[in-house]
């Protein structure tokens, strides 16, 4: 730390920002310690390094900070986090300070928080199916290793329960265990508990690292928490070869913190007050998922975000959708009808599904099976809207069948409750729904698939008798 420099007094302070003048050799991203008399030091980071003015973003509460009397130390080090296998089983604050009463982890390495991008030529295309135990995902919106698949939720919808269920039930193709990195970003104590209680059983905590920045914690720390967590996730995945699932909740709070800093800097606001660089900023988080050459590990992200006003065109879900590889959308309507998980499969999509299904990964003809279910369900949903206008009698017979199908689909296939369903059971549940329909409704299936199914049913019937 020979580069550390200490100054007395700041030129100004506003919100989370402290302005210094006359600082020598400030570096962008340098760690800073801000001390007020009689207070524990606050952590900060240089976000604008200048010969005349240097701007420090303080990660902790700046209430009561008096610019004239602070003592400021530029540490000479870049913002970084301790990473290592020994962090498994630990609960840490947003920037890595212990939250579990234990001493700080020693770690195996120090990783810079900004996170160097993976060289695209060293990435492997994600291909390995992750069985989440959830039919609407495994069957229709398949998750693969190395993917970033966000959950688009709304206030009061059970996104965290869903994430916890996935984390609890997820199985990798060769049954490798997952390590879980959970980042709470500005969510309430209760939400955090909801999540943790769900997946605590079965020693899950021992293979998890928790980064907790909750609602009562400093806002600006939210900007660093996911980065500290991802540094650890990358270390576990690419140094130790583990399969890592990263759950981040709630990206909406993250974006609000971003907006707060932008406003404090008096930047020209973009859409709905969010900064124009939010796409780039979010990408620097979401792109830290993947599979790379030369390592058996992977980083898979399940970010959760709350759509303000359930509006999918709001900049937060919109920009997220532009970066991630699909989305799982929760529906208030299904929730109201008691369907769990309330996944609306129509706007949901896993863009990497095609690479992760089929004979080599799941079952042959998975695609056609899914397309068929999707098509009839979509038709049924359309019919449901039409009924409101023309009444059920105005529908064609095929529409009426689709309508009944949609009800059953939501109740049985999507609404599986809390239980885990294997892929085989999911496929069978889908076939059961299709069995009720005449062949003219099943044009997405090949004659061979229909014949195969027929044979399977006959064999099953014989077994029973």
């Amino acid at each position, binding site marked *: 730390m020979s580069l550390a420099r200490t100054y007395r007094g700041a030129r100004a302070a506003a919100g989370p920002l402290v302005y210094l003048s006359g600082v020598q050799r400030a570096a962008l991203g340098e760690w800073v310690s801000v001390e007020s008399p009689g207070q524990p030091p606050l952590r900060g980071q240089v976000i604008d390094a200048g010969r005349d003015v*240097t701007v420090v973003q303080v990660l902790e509460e700046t209430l009561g900070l008096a610019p004239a009397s602070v003592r400021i130390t530029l540490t000479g080090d870049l913002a970084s986090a301790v990473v290592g296998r020994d962090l498994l089983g630990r609960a840490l604050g947003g920037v890595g300070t212990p939250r579990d009463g234990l001493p700080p982890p020693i770690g195996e390495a120090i990783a810079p928080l900004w996170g160097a991008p993976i060289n695209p030529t060293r*990435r492997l*295309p994600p291909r390995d199916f992750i069985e989440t135990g959830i039919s609407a995902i495994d069957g229709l919106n398949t998750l693969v290793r190395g993917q970033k698949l966000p959950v688009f939720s709304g206030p009061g919808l059970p996104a965290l329960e869903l994430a916890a269920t996935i984390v609890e039930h997820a199985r990798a193709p060769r049954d490798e265990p997952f390590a879980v990195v959970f980042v709470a970003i500005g969510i309430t104590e209760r939400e955090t508990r909801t999540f943790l209680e769900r997946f605590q059983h079965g020693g899950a905590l021992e293979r998890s690292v928790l980064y907790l920045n909750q609602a009562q914690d400093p806002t600006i720390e939210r900007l660093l928490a996911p980065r500290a967590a991802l540094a650890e996730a990358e270390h576990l995945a690419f140094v130790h070869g583990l399969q890592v699932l990263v759950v981040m909740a709630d990206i909406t709070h993250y974006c609000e913190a971003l907006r707060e800093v932008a406003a404090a800097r008096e930047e020209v606001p973009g859409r709905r007050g969010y900064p124009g660089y939010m796409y*780039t900023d979010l990408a*620097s988080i979401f792109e830290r998922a993947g599979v790379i050459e030369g390592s058996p590990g992977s980083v898979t992200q399940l970010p959760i975000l709350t759509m303000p006003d359930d509006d999918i065109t709001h900049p937060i879900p919109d920009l997220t*959708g532009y970066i991630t590889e699909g989305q799982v959308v929760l529906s208030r309507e299904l929730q109201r009808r008691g369907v769990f998980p309330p996944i609306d499969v129509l706007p949901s999509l896993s863009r*990497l599904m095609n690479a992760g299904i089929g004979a080599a990964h799941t079952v042959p003809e998975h695609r056609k099976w899914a397309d068929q279910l999707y098509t009839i369900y979509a038709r049924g949903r359309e019919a449901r809207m039409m009924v409101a206008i023309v009444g059920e009698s105005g529908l064609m017979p095929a529409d009426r069948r689709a309508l009944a199908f949609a009800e059953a689909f939501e109740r049985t296939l999507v609404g599986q409750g809390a239980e885990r369903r294997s892929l085989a059971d999911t496929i069978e549940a889908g076939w059961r729904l299709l069995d009720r329909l005449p062949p003219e409704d099943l044009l997405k299936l090949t004659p061979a698939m229909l014949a195969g199914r027929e044979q399977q049913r006959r064999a099953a019937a014989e077994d029973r008798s």
Partner: protein
Amino acid sequence: MTAGTLTRVVGALAEATGLGGVALHELVRVGDAALLGEVLRVSGDVATLQVFEETTGLRVGEPVVREQLPLAIELGPGLLGQVIDGIGRPLGRLAVLSGTFIQPGAAPPTLDRDARFAFEPARAVGDLVEAGDVLGTVADRGGFPFKLLVPPGRSGIVRHVRAGDVGLLDPVVTLDAGDPITLLQRWPVRRPRPAGARVAADRPFLTGQRIFDFLFPVAEGGTVAVPGGFGTGKTVIEQALAKFGDADVVVYVGCGERGNEMAEVLHEFARLVDPRAGRSVMDRTVLVVNTSNMPVAARESSVYVGLTVAEFFRDMGYRVAVMADSLSRWAEALREVGSRLQEMPGEEGYPTSLASRAAKLHERAGRVRCLGRPERHGSITLISAVSPPGGDFSEPVTQACLRVTSALWALDAALAHQRQFPAVDWSTSYSLDAQAMVEYLDQQVEPRWSAARARALDLLQRDAELREVASVVGPDALEDKDRLLLAAAAALREFVLGQSAFDPNDAFSPPAKTFVLAEAALALFERGAAALAAGRSFADLPIDAVRRALAGLRDAAADGLDESRKAVHEALAALSAPGVAEGGDA
């Protein structure tokens, strides 16, 4: 060399003093790590720079060194099959040098200095040559000759020619004035390479995607905007065109998009064989990649790097297709830098120069007479994805592109939700070249092409109107002939306009297959109508049989096409009269 001093670092921007006489757009090396940067503004002694690499860790007081050159890239044989970033660094060799994660400051040259080539001269000592003249060729990955041209601005009498084994930096041809000409050349990316006059676009850029070739064909040398909300299929289209589009060279610019997509492109293109050239698709491709988490300034430059590579091959007389995914990220990079520069923002915070920059960028596409001899034409067709916030096309980037492009392939989120892919909204999409292109297709592919297109557009139009009616009165209230129309239009949408990029047999549709499928869907309507007129009822028509036959034809492997065609014929024949087989025009 003059060294200045770094006085400020914020985001991708830096300020330096003491760079006396530095020019706008001049390159500089920033900091101890010698990061590449570019001068954006000079005011008194202060120069404002954008830095093309990660700036975290740059320290005030570090040196800044002038390069006395604008941002330029290396051009030469060996470019094909390469993956380069937004400032021309070869990502493959960068990974060898600095590992899996990109570290700032490492910069191997674009082209591999160890490569050797066999030069076959086309000109001899004593010849008078001018800019653009073909001096000779070397073999390259593309399967077509790489032509060494007299560089722009040069001319003279050939004094020396070196045939046979040469390296990139060896003098290959020496003129009576100026430096010897080498296989390796450099060109500043922001300056368009000179070319001769524009020539009229006379033939379509065939995409292998039915909806584009059949309904909205674009001319070779044309420009297309492909706007659509997230997940509407822009990237799938760009990749399909890169794989199957009829071009000699493809430049794929992944501008501010996903790393996994690039991995997919790399792995798939290497394996996929180009049906026309009989070699790997990667052999005709140059990938320019600046993913969304790579530095924002290099995102902006990546589009120019891609266009410069395209112009280089165009100048040899080749047909180049450029896929830019996505121009919105390019525009946002401009906005990010502009706002840090505290420029007066225009609409939605974009720089007021957005429209003129978009226009200039698109002007680099086109079909031209190349400079020099022998006489030849080259073209650049530019297909750009646009990512409008919230899927709303009234935003500035979409509008700026639409003012200058010759075609719009509008993607619609509702169609994507119905899994109607490509999710092209046929009511708002257009191609200004369509008329000329269908005339070409009438002459070269199938004389009834333009007529079939007109019938299809008419059917789609009537379908849209009818569906609106049906949504009010209920489909059950429709007459038989209307039901037939809905059924035929559904078949047209599903089996002709719809095309799965993931079905190995259907991902690429040659023009002949496109026509047969379209004609069959139209025949379903017309023959069905005749049958209704002859007294049959809609319920009696074997629509599902025709649908199955169409699906069979759509998904048939190349060697099963004839058989599937026959099946379609038979199914259509059964429409006209039960039990009476009849030859048809499908």
